């Protein structure tokens, strides 16, 4: 029982840390091109990049459209991204778990 509550606390603390990182650290992240983009620029294939089909998404480039403050916009986009990733991850791994046939905690439908 104690371990169960401690795991919940761990999850809560982990998510809190992730939120803190995107809200308070990401506005200060380095905005230079990353390794691959740098190589693309230097070696001359950067201009082969084509427009992103979701380039007009309200979250494109880690900005929440309609928010003018750059730092807040980026931080909020990060919070949305964390929640979306957590939700999609939970859904995927819950699906994976249902396929775990050896799990004794698995509640199975009784077959007649």
């Amino acid at each position, binding site marked *: 029982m104690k371990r169960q509550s401690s795991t919940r606390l761990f999850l809560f603390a982990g998510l809190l840390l992730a939120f803190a990182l995107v809200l308070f650290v990401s506005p200060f992240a380095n905005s230079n091109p990353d390794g691959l983009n740098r190589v693309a620029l230097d070696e001359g*294939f950067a201009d082969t990049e084509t427009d992103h089909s979701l380039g007009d998404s309200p979250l494109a480039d880690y900005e929440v459209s309609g928010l003018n403050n750059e730092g807040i916009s980026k931080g909020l986009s990060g919070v949305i991204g964390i929640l979306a990733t957590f939700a999609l*991850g939970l859904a995927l791994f819950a699906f994976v778990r249902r396929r775990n046939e050896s799990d004794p905690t698995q509640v199975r439908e009784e077959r007649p």
Partner: protein
Amino acid sequence: MHIPDGFIDAGTSAGAAVIAAGGVAVAVKKTSKYMDDRRVPLAGLTAAFVFAVQMLNFPVAAGTSGHLLGGVLAAILVGPWAGALCVAVVLVVQAFFADGGITALGLNILDMGFVTALGGYAIFAGLRRVLPNERSSVIVASGIAAGASVVLAALAFFLQFAIGGTVDIPLGSVFAAMVGVHALIGVGEGVITAATVGLVLSVRPDLVYGARDLTTPLELKPRLGAAGGVS
């Protein structure tokens, strides 16, 4: 290191998407062998944490930044195949942030998901075999494996570029540039991975897949003074 649309031709991208989809199917099967109620939220948290830290670009050289890929971190926390799935989830979400191309999704899942998580975890496991069997070895091995995994991912991109690059430029120069800059980014990857693994090991070592041999499950631990207890 997110590959945008256009860098790699459509045929190669489609081929990579098929291989990535097959990889995801295998990963689901492998992960289903040990995924239980307790690990589901932890795997979700791992993916969410990787998303967050990927936003924190750090400077590596003049005018160049890098960020965590997170494949090795995820692999050590939840297992190599589950780790690859975590990165795949992150990449799918990032598509809505226009980070990493849509047609390039398969390429990116292969490079940043499978190559780092599986390749990096193999290095981690190899290092653990030669290092002393203790907690500090897990931290050291995680850092080195994470650093190497970034170079592996750069090599994977180079291979894709050599097969399906959309411009004809000298490959040797691209190879040297990719490996060089990603070796530098690997240092940051190693530091962040080792620090995070160390943090989790200090609070809940039983939650670290890559260190599961160092902890015994609670249920099997004899309680002090309980031996031959009251009946």
